[in-house]
């Protein structure tokens, strides 16, 4: 379909691809596969839309796993002196809950949106490095398996199928998602920490690879005329998030590497009796960990900035301010890590400086919130499901922001440190913020992704139940923290006065879980029976709504030429001079990259390396050799990847221009 006509024509069937070149042979005789359906296609695909969908499926699966862990935690704390789970199991539960939610649920769900949306929103046919994109996905899956396979080994040990040489019981990570050394050194923890270290390293490789890809894509693959200040806000937030990832992950890579050397090779980075400093871990972890918070929330802010203008039929209020405040948040995110360490005794000057810098972050965040409200102001608001969730996001995120400002003051932080007040704060930001807006994004873009529209009132029920459950779970935690309930303890005594509010929190958690269950059911129901969505169901403003739903493999039959911000809106409702143009189609057809096995092969090498290194620590024989073979598989995969050549075929979309 052409961009110069209106955009509501029926989706054209994907035209058959003609490979007049024949299969392209590489330098060493390898032929890149050309699957188009089935499991083999999913394993070898380099299509950013399929990769995005797989990211979403894995992320939602881990959202369930992390959620079940959270329900166990809340069930244990429902009443005083409960012994549903042991103290050891409780440590494993909160460690795995945090690790899973941060690295395996929120980050990959954001990645799903990056993958699916960024090329569509900038008018590109794919990301800059399609095979690297597939590598990021499979490496993420490998890292997720390395961390979570520990549960299986623990189960095997309970059944007597697996024994460790020294009879250690600590097989699931139990050192907290922050992994404070030296509590995670080999004297105090078992191979759980090894699964955690290697899993996180592999996940870090996946994140950095994906981020490099997205930065290059956004900078180099924009459609003609799409200047930086015409990029959709979601793309801007993706760019800033990706920059944060490439600068924030190296410090944790080094920290994990040092911890690994301490555990495997007898170095002294965190051995206090040899001069190692526990505070070094805290600095290295939080210089990653605080930017990580913004890595989790900036994509959410981008999603909200796309939904609000569409649902209130107004341009985003203060586009430049939203973009610049996002950049400022990203920059300041690196300057505030020590506010996680106010109680470690850094001295007055450092504490005061980090206190001030942390408060400063409230300014760009406030700018964003006022811009969103300005967008709503005087708009013709349609209360669609994504809009209701977005409004819920603004409220929840503001609540989390306010308690954040309380923490930024070092004296009050000294009181709140390690109490449930902190738990309340970051769950308001990360569930009320990230998860709520990612859900809004799923409701907003699922029609484009699948071609199926939501129907019925279930979406409104989901939004209502989730927002009620969320507040019921986390609001009382502010008070629990204020009256002294500490984090990370598996139970509490009777008569502390904490019992009633803990029961309320637990009830809230189960209500939240019901809401998430209905959310997943609603996705499933829509996929099976949703009515056709049409190309532009929301009267959208960005380029992805110009193409059919679901988008064809080549995205754009003709690359659009952009003349303004909110390009599609201007095209539909603006003057003649800002209508979208399009690039003449190439006579040879659109060149599409072929599938490839080697990104998957390289990732499997990492999986073997991570699991066998952890088992090596448990004294399982031959694991050192298996680890080396894993590394070799990765190397061979990368070599064959480089040598298999460009491959590819040409498509001739049937145009109705």
């Amino acid at each position: 379909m052409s961009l110069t006509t209106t955009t509501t024509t029926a989706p054209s069937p994907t035209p058959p691809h003609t490979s007049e070149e024949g299969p392209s042979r590489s330098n060493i005789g390898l032929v890149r596969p050309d699957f188009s359906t089935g499991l083999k296609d999913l394993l070898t695909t380099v299509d950013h839309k399929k990769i995005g969908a797989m990211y979403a499926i894995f992320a939602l699966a881990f959202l369930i796993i992390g959620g079940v862990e959270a329900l166990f935690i809340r069930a244990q704390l429902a009443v005083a002196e409960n012994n549903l789970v042991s103290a050891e199991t409780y440590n494993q539960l909160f460690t795995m809950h945090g690790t899973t939610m941060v690295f395996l649920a929120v980050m990959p769900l954001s990645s799903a949106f990056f993958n699916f949306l960024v090329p569509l929103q900038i008018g590109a046919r794919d990301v800059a490095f399609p095979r690297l994109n597939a590598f990021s996905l499979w490496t993420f899956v490998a890292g997720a398996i390395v961390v979570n396979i520990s549960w299986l080994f623990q189960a095997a040990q309970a059944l007597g199928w697996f024994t460790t040489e020294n009879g250690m019981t600590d097989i699931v990570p139990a050192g907290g998602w922050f992994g404070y050394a030296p509590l995670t050194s080999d004297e105090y923890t078992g191979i759980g920490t090894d699964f955690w270290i290697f899993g996180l390293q592999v996940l870090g490789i996946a994140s950095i690879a994906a981020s490099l890809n997205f930065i290059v894509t956004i900078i180099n693959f924009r459609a003609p005329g799409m200047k930086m200040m015409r990029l959709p806000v979601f793309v801007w937030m993706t760019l800033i998030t990706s920059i944060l990832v490439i600068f924030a992950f190296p410090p944790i890579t080094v920290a994990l590497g040092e911890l690994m050397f301490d555990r495997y090779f007898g170095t002294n980075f965190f051995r206090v009796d040899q001069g190692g400093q526990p505070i070094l871990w805290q600095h290295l972890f939080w210089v990653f960990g605080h930017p990580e918070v913004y890595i989790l929330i900036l994509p959410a802010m981008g999603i909200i900035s796309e939904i609000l203008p569409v649902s209130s039929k107004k341009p985003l209020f203060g586009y430049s301010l939203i973009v610049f405040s996002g950049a400022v948040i990203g920059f300041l995110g690196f300057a505030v890590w020590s506010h996680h360490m106010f109680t470690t005794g850094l001295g007055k000057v450092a504490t005061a400086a980090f206190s001030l810098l942390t408060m400063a972050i409230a300014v760009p965040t406030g700018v964003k919130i006022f811009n969103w409200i300005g967008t709503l102001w005087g708009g013709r608001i349609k209360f669609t499901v994504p809009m209701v969730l977005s409004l819920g996001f603004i409220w929840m995120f503001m609540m989390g922001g306010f308690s954040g400002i309380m923490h930024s003051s070092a004296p009050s932080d000294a009181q709140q440190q390690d109490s449930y007040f902190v738990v309340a704060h970051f769950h308001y930001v990360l569930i009320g913020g990230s998860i709520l807006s990612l859900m809004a994004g799923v409701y907003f873009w699922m029609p484009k992704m699948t071609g199926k529209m939501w129907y019925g009132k279930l979406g409104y029920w989901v939004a209502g139940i989730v927002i009620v459950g969320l507040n019921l779970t986390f609001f009382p935690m502010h008070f629990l923290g204020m009256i002294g309930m500490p984090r990370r303890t598996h139970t509490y005594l009777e008569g502390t006065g904490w019992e009633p509010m803990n029961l309320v929190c637990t009830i809230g958690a189960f209500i939240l879980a019901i809401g998430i269950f209905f959310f997943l059911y609603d996705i499933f129901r829509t996929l099976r029976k949703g009515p056709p969505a049409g190309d532009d169901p929301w009267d959208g403003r960005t380029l992805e709504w110009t193409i059919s739903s679901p988008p064809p493999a080549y995205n754009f039959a003709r690359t659009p030429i952009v003349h303004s911000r909110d390009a599609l809106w201007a095209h539909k409702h603006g003057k003649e001079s800002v209508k979208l143009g399009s690039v003449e189609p190439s006579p040879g057809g659109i060149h599409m990259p072929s599938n490839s096995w080697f990104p998957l092969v390289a990732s499997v090498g990492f999986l073997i390396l991570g699991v066998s290194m952890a088992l090596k620590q448990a004294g399982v024989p031959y694991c050192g050799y298996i680890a080396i073979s894993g590394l070799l598989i990765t190397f061979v995969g990368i070599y064959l990847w480089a040598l298999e050549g460009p491959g590819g075929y040409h498509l001739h979309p049937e145009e109705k221009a």
Partner: protein
Amino acid sequence: MSHAADASHPADHIPTGLDNKKLMMWLFLASDCMFFGTLITTHLVYRKIYENVGVDPITVFDIELTTASSFILLMSSLLMALAVSAIHKGDVKSFRWNLVGVIIFGTLFLGGQVYEFNHFVHLGLTLSTGTFGSTFYVMTGTHGVHVALGILWLISWLVYSFSPKFNAHENAVDVETAGLYWHFVDIVWIVIFTAVYLIEYV
């Protein structure tokens, strides 16, 4: 050894005019700056903590040898620049000889590091000699791994340059990307040499 046409660009223009692979390498090196920055910071924080060390870095370090191997590494950067310049001119023969030079010089540097590590261990400075030994070996070892990967990469290009598919014009940008990596590894070594070796003599 990847190839130019991995994904077709939607339009014939690139907004920045910077090749995808080169841009990617610049970004990766920016990330690597944080990586080495963290390692070097760890060393600077830890080098004066002398619990259980028992060895003095000045008596262990052989500054003449390290200076020589640092000079060799820097000269390899010069040869790398000549190799990149040659392939841009299409002079494959000169490209190969310069690349051989880079590989030999890089390997000499690595050999120096292996000799050094072996020698230091005999003098009593090991991985577990206090925090100084830990950071010294982990940091310089990480740099050594970077050099080794670079050598592997360049050997691959040398071998590939004999393949009939090798095209000096098309592959010049790939070689240039490898060159960026090589120069970065050299520049990092200057910082490490200063912050680890020279600083002990101040």
